């Protein structure tokens, strides 16, 4: 990730510029943010998380038991939920490998957080310039990573069809309490994540078409944009020979 051309004026080590990120001058400027593979990976994760939340909530409270209808009844919901969990875990693990480096905490994150009320109040000009991810996005990333790890671990302990003999009933009780509480937090983090994407206009195209406008990058991730502009090989012709080493 640190293969910078020494001649390029990059203010700080740009380890949140990821392979595939590139600026295309034009009107408007477009900025590549996610590769096709990253987007497919993201949507598999997203769909499985939503299906897990729906099938899990169906068992969580009788008022939502009707959601089992979406999965072909109670027995099918019980069968499918853990398997979708396995899909989520694998898919998220790949996403983790893709994104973790760009989500490493930086000094600017503390400053960004200190100004988060300005952000929510719409005074974005007061925010510090951030790289590919701001502290909020990093929070979503790391908390989802931790929550999913807890969910798969507790989920396997509760998965009686295959794992019943390996734990005691007391351990299973703890697992189910942990699993349901963790699931609630995961759903809340998911709500924050989706809300951010809805609130910040111009974000969705990052995960649909893979790019955002220059204005979006300027407004929300200016440091990342600066790094990209300074990075050679961002010409429309492609990444050229300077793809950062992974």
């Amino acid at each position, binding site marked *: 990730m640190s293969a910078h051309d020494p001649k390029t004026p990059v203010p700080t080590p740009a380890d949140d510029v990821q392979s595939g990120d590139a600026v295309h001058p034009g009107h408007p400027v477009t900025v590549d943010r996610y590769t096709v593979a990253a987007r497919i990976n993201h949507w598999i994760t997203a769909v499985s998380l939503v299906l897990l939340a729906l099938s899990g909530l169906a068992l969580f409270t009788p008022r939502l038991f009707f959601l089992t209808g979406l999965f072909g009844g109670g027995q099918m919901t019980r069968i499918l939920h853990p398997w979708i969990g396995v899909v989520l875990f694998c898919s998220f693990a790949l996403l983790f490998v893709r994104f973790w480096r760009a989500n490493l905490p930086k000094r600017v994150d503390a400053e960004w957080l200190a100004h988060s009320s300005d952000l929510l109040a719409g005074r974005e000009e007061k925010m510090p310039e951030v790289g590919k991810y701001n502290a909020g996005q990093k929070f979503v990333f790391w908390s989802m990573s931790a929550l999913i790890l807890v969910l798969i671990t507790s989920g396997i302990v509760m998965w009686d069809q295959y794992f019943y003999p390996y734990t005691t009933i007391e351990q299973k009780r703890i697992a189910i309490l942990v699993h349901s509480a963790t699931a609630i937090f995961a759903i809340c983090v998911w709500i924050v994540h989706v809300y951010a994407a809805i609130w910040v206009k111009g974000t969705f195209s990052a995960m649909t078409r893979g790019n955002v406008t*220059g204005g979006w990058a300027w407004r929300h991730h200016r440091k990342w944009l600066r790094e990209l502009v300074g990075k050679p090989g961002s010409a429309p012709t492609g990444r050229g020979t300077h793809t950062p080493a992974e």
Partner: protein
Amino acid sequence: MFPPIPNPSVDPAAATPRFGEKDIMRRSASTVEPPAQRLTEVAKLIDVTKCIGCKACQAACLEWNQLTEEVGINHGVYDNPMDLTENTFTLMRFTEWVNPETENLEWLIRKDGCMHCEDPGCLKACPSPGAIVQYSNGIVDFQHENCIGCGYCIKGCPFNIPRISKVDHTAYKCTLCSDRVAVGQGPACQKACPTQAIVFGTKEEMKGWADFRIKDLKSRGFENAGLYDPQGVGGTHVMYVLHHADQPSIYANLPDNPRISPIVETWKGITKYMGMALMGVAAAAGVLHYLVAGPNKVTEEDEENAEKLAGAADLPPPAGPAGSEGRPT
């Protein structure tokens, strides 16, 4: 001797069930209007002090419920199978216990199975509406067509009773022969017991009979003889007479003070309310913020700044028309 329950009348009118849907007092994952009048509570009394370990009850249970247990292997003890299964609703558990006071070896034989708790943890834990019901006579019954096989009942039960079938993936346990009781019969195990170690009747009758038995035992030197009707689960509709009622756990780990686990109570209680509230607040906060603050839009100025920045950079001249959409994927 406890008066035996008479054989059923052959009159077809006698075959109409004495309790059913209308007598359901609790139903899993549902709120039910409790029946205006509660049926007389029934109970099965298992007098451990009279049991000879013949397993007639265990066999009768399989037979009445048309179940077949796998042919197992001998583990060197009398217990067979080694644990309750989806077919073995009742199991004789044998314990060799040395009484520290007398140095005598006592052979404790306990008939394990569902206790038909007044406050059933299985029912509390069950997420599927109507998979577990409790009739007002105290019988806790599983209704297989509603069961989803999740095994939550196993986690809810303080006695480790329900088992999930590997065949139809639904939960099984002793029904207290609800089908027999409905037509005025006692459970099959009770009927088969040659020593009247198992008796069945109303809960009051059973407590009375237990008193009589306990007095008898005390008069013979079992000063700690007593009734096991644990109040932690509101009492049970299967009760034991124990010679050592002060230490139930010597009887193959019969819980000393059974109660629904606090972990289960937390999971089924506050977690549900707090969870729903938390998710609701998160969603509501989003909607509210959007209404108050409005969308966060990219301005013309932002785009111009980006264009300036991108243009200013020392880039190789763009190949092809400016703004070409050719982008690496």
